[in-house]
């Protein structure tokens, strides 16, 4: 039964993504008005606090707020250090980590609503034959040039600017600058029919500028996702944040060395984030900081057991030749499928 419903890991992942998209965007319909916030509090990377009726809390929101309201102002007031700084910050990090232990970086590849939306747009792009663009030399350039951006966004927009706002050095309009440009905030609120977040504040220059960047970024990635796989994930500070802890989670990608890897490279073609290291390296280096644990590399590895998704000692999925043969019949490693072609009807 399960085998018929989910013949491939990709089909199973799509089902999980769609369920999580519905839960993160319309969760309160299922779990109730208050419970949605409680679940979000317990699983802090669930969805967006800007959606005030459904779910709430992405770990980046309390992190910015604590740098802004707690740490920055706490340093200024220099009192109640334990309650103002240590406990709230540890609670955010620990509750995030409690969630993280269960699924690790698979949040990005299996749960994130924006990731799901980008993949759905990419499917449309593949179906309609838009040419795939990759971060490889000769096309969009080496992927290494993009990778530092997510770290810069994490440091500057999640940590530094909120802290400076809390210290009183920067404007309070910079209190949660990452949320102000976050395209997931726009996606999840627009999916509930709420255009409030798309509208720009006109009485605050900084808020207007940040909102304009966010809206432009959202528009950009909606179109870019037709040709570029997961365009925003590459610069997402949550991916950087997750990668800080990826070695601590039992859920991980494991690759063992194999002589065919030097000439193959199919796994890196399958990788939506163009991680070349998955083909070139093994061991710890193969589980790269950009990996979202989507499992496509394992699906498209034609060697038995070379790439595995493991939780602790248990292999949840392992590559295999027979699986690979079935998989490529339905979809090429880069996600290409038989495109939809429009042709004029022939008249007799």
């Amino acid at each position, binding site marked *: 039964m399960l085998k018929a419903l989910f013949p491939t890991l990709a089909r199973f992942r799509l089902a999980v993504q769609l369920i999580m998209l519905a839960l993160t965007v319309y969760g309160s319909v299922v779990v*109730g*008005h*208050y*419970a949605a*916030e*409680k679940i979000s509090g317990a699983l802090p990377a669930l969805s967006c*606090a800007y959606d*005030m*009726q459904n779910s*709430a809390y992405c770990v980046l929101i309390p992190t910015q707020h604590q740098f*802004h*309201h707690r740490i920055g102002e706490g340093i*200024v*007031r*220099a009192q109640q250090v334990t*309650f103002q700084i240590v406990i*709230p910050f540890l609670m955010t990090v620990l509750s995030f980590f409690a969630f993280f232990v269960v699924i690790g970086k698979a949040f990005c590849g299996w749960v994130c609503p924006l990731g799901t939306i980008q993949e759905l747009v990419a499917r449309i792009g593949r179906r309609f034959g*838009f*040419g*795939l*663009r*990759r971060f*490889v030399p*000769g*096309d969009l350039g080496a992927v290494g040039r993009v990778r530092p951006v997510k770290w810069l966004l994490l440091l500057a927009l999640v940590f530094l600017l909120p802290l400076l706002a809390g*210290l*009183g*050095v920067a404007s*309070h309009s910079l*209190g949660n600058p990452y949320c102000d440009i976050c395209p997931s905030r726009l996606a999840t609120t627009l999916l509930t029919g709420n*255009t*409030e977040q*798309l*509208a*720009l*504040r*006109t*009485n*605050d220059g900084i808020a*207007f500028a940040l*909102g*304009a960047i966010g*809206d*432009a*970024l*959202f*528009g*950009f*990635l*909606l*179109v*870019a996702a*037709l*040709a*570029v796989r997961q365009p925003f994930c590459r610069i997402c500070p949550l991916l950087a944040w997750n990668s800080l802890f990826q070695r601590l989670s039992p859920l991980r990608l494991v690759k063992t060395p194999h002589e065919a890897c030097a000439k193959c*490279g199919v796994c890196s*073609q399958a990788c939506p984030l163009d991680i070349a290291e998955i083909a070139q390296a093994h061991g710890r280096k193969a589980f790269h900081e950009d990996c979202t644990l989507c499992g496509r590399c394992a699906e498209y590895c034609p060697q038995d057991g070379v790439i595995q998704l493991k939780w602790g000692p248990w292999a949840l999925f392992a590559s295999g030749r027979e699986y690979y043969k079935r998989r490529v019949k339905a979809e*090429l*490693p*880069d996600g290409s499928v038989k495109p939809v072609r429009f042709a004029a009807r022939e008249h007799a």
Partner: protein
Amino acid sequence: MKTALLTLAALAAFEAAAQAPAAPPAAAGRYAKSQDWTAYPLLLPALGGGRGERLAVRLGPRNLHAAALDVFAADGSPEQRHRQVPVGEDGNAAVAPVAPAKGNYTWVVAREEDATHVTVASTVAYFSNPGKAPTALLREPRHELEIVPERLPREHANYRESEKWGFLVRFNGAPLANQVLKLDTDNGSRGRFLTDAEGRAVVLFPRDFRPAAESRGHGHDHGPPRARFVLAAELDAADKHYLTAFNYSYAPDADRDRSLAWGAFFGVLGMAGALPLLRRRKPFKDGGQIDA
């Protein structure tokens, strides 16, 4: 030069913080108006009374006399779930969550009673740590005449002007039909609503924030500006006059000072910026491109 100015600004900020006798209350910036906007009984925050506190909030009864506040929590042991907190000499009582790590909504009541009158002021205090949902807390009857929100706005949300929210009016635990519910707001609006057969009144928050007032909230506590409101119901029964009020805060309409047209413009601009990515490319060497 710019660095020096920034450094001076940072030093000035530290200096000002060091010289201040005490940090201004989070609520003071928001609730700068005097208390004469209503004659109904209120429970208002004093020092440290901002929403979303973790440790304690100081609430004081206004327009009624009460020696203590009754505090009802959604979580904890029976002793913790109902506590009485004495009102101090400054006219305020410290309301804390049942445990340091437990938060969410707490129902707070002040009651004044004599032979012919029962006056009740009620509100909710929100503590930003996780805690049990207030659904059961709001369902339990506690006084003769009660006004209870059907649903409370969550941590990052507010009651907002132009929005409709449901409130239940109960007498001795039973829904009170055709009961008049009066609304007074800090911004000077007055409203009147009637409960239906289920004791439910739909309250429309008036669009009454003035542009000058809207900038008030962008001060110490960085949140949206808020104004207070109070809902009050009066009833004569069994030779007594019952007056009960529920007060909380509401915020401006989210559409104020926002432009959807500008938002859409920048969204479309971003889309246009991505169009070059849709141009077809020749296949590259590693075989990843399948269409020529």
